């Protein structure tokens, strides 16, 4: 948030480059019947993340933002498209990764999960959990691993580390657990971390300290985040750029302050107008969007937002989903009526 990261993104090669990524889930498929109905969870999205940059992925529930995160960490296979990861100048395509590249990929990309109560194995100690990737990838000797884990615990603020090393998750609070999860993600020195709403399950009082910790560690470890959230305020605090998703499509992507100051897509405007402002005298600008969230089941080839859009025109009803318009300054919008 300190400097406009878009300049960096333009200059250097991106760390992660997502091209035409799609994920379709078949409906009612079995051995006797080919599926002909698909839920378009993620439908043809493109974005880039520069080294050290944090991209926020914002959208309502069910819009495909978690699916995107899971595809980037290879927890889910992409239906089509490419995810290119820059590993020291070499590009790895995560979507079609070779078995031999898998281990290298697991060292570069890590994930922080939403629910710290479910993301730690209750039968393993903090040490086991944090050291897992070191153990699996056979990095270092046992004593080195122990030192490394203790060091990470120290850096995520679990001090003194020796009193936390051999505790079980049920002996920790929610914030402490999320710190353990952060230590686990960073212990192997990744370059890219997918954070799937890491603060949404935490008490408001400890949310900010976890976010500050993540920002601090992003600098120290030089990692990029894909920060998935439904909270614009959190995205603003954490991210250099924000991508807004609606029903499997990215509708607008821009540097954080640019997006907040100058939202162009009607959906982004509606989202922003829904953010509460702590000022009783403030008159909010009403953005009328109609109805509830549409279904992503076999969407017709028109703009995904058309059913709820306040300014849909004939062009919107006859043409396919709009491509990105570059408004300059890294601001991309997918809408026919700007």
């Amino acid at each position, binding site marked *: 948030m300190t400097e406009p990261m878009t300049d960096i993104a333009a200059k250097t090669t991106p760390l992660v480059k997502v091209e035409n990524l799609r994920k379709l889930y078949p409906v009612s498929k079995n051995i006797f019947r080919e599926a002909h109905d698909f839920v378009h969870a993620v439908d043809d999205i493109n974005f880039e993340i520069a080294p050290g940059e944090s991209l926020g992925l914002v959208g309502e529930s069910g819009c495909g933002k978690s699916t995107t995160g*899971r595809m980037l*960490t290879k*927890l889910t296979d992409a239906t089509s498209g490419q995810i290119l990861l820059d590993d020291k100048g070499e590009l790895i395509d995560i979507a079609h990764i070779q078995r031999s590249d*898998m*281990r290298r990929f*697991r*060292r570069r*990309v*890590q*994930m922080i*999960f*939403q*629910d710290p109560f*479910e*993301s*730690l*194995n*209750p*039968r*393993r*100690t903090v040490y086991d*959990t944090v050291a*897992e*990737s*070191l153990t*699996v*990838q*056979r*990095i*270092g*000797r*046992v*004593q*080195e*691993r*122990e*030192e*490394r884990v*203790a*060091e990470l615990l*120290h*850096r995520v603020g679990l001090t003194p*580390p*020796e009193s936390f*090393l*051999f505790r079980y998750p049920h002996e920790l609070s929610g914030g402490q657990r999320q710190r353990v*999860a952060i230590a*686990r993600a960073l212990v*192997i*020195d990744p370059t890219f971390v997918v954070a799937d709403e890491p603060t949404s399950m935490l008490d408001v009082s400890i949310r900010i300290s976890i976010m500050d910790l993540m920002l601090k560690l992003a600098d*120290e*470890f*030089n990692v990029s985040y894909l920060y998935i959230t439904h909270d614009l305020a959190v995205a603003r605090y954490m991210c250099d750029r924000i991508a807004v998703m609606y029903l499997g499509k990215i509708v607008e992507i821009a540097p954080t302050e640019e997006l907040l100051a100058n939202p162009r897509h009607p959906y982004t405007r509606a989202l922003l107008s829904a953010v509460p402002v702590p000022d009783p005298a403030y008159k909010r600008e009403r953005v009328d969007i109609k109805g509830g969230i549409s279904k992503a089941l076999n969407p017709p080839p028109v703009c995904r937002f058309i059913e709820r859009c306040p300014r849909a025109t004939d062009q919107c009803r006859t043409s396919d989903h709009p491509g990105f318009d570059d408004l300059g300054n890294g601001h991309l919008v997918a809408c026919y009526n700007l």
Partner: protein
Amino acid sequence: MADTLTPPTGELENFDPQRVVEEPLWRVRLRLGWRSFRRNWALFNDNKMGVVGLAIIALFGLMALAHPILMATIWSNHLEGGKNVYDIRAGADSIIVTKTIVEEVTDPLTEISQIEAMFLGTGVNIPEIGDTIESPLANPAPPVFSGVKHPHILGTDPFGGDVFSQLLFGARAAFLLGAIAAISSVALATLVGTISAYFGGVIDTLLMRLADLVILIPLLPLLIVVSGFWNVELTMLGILIGILSGLGGTAIILKSQALSVKVKPFIDAARIAGGGHWRIITRHIIPNVLPLSFLYMMFAVTGAIFTEAALSFLGLLNIQQSWGIMINIAHTQGYTLEGFDVWWLMFPAGLAITLFSAGFFLVGRAMDEVVNPRLRKR
């Protein structure tokens, strides 16, 4: 160990990594294991039912241990006809009656010839006609409680064998069978359940249809047929019961537990750490299913003992001695309907089967409360 760790980036104030590695890892694990055992024991101890069950099992454990010790010490020199009276299979004691020595035997139950009496006696003197002499009654003798040559705490069986010795040996057989059946059943069920839950798809379908098939076939009639074809011994019976009960209901229950573990985010986290299928199954899913596995281990013992007793009663097993065989012998020799007159033939063995099963069942129920927090009272 090909790689070394990269030196940490960023500064670290007042942190000494050496401080944390003083205690070796295995000792930490031992300490943690002991701690969690103490905590679980406290929960288990809350429930007196489980403690009673454990006491019953301990009693049978002592019985099983006592048999070889008694055979080697107190019972070692009670020989008759070259065989130990207390031997569980060959041992036989006989009733002693007083017979009059006569020249010509007319009633073999009360009279004995001079020549026979000479062999019974210990001295060199030829027994006088008209004297009396103690002589064993021919086998098989009717089961008696007392009045025999050697002491029998619980009397003798229809063949003159010592019931108490057989009872003690039966405990050994029951423990052996129970352990084999329980371990093989639960090991199989845990593996089948977790693999089925983890991989899903075709593997899941195959394993679960197999489980349905095993549930469909009644265990006892199947074992009766099997024992007709093969010579079923105790270990083989244990493994058979283990396979048949492990593939059926227990596998399905453990699969349901594994399914609920499989969808937890920590499984995703393990995959992101780079863990393969085998590591995820053995390090993440099975440890979370294991408490339930132990629970079903207890119930598997009960099932195995009952099955063995039923098969032994029908005389279908090639087993040296067991509680079921004790009842079988009493039954086949026609003492089933004598009831309380020969109580020592049926009741010790029957009670042992009941108590042994009850002990494991009670422990299982108490463990259920430790494993399943919803059942806890506090």
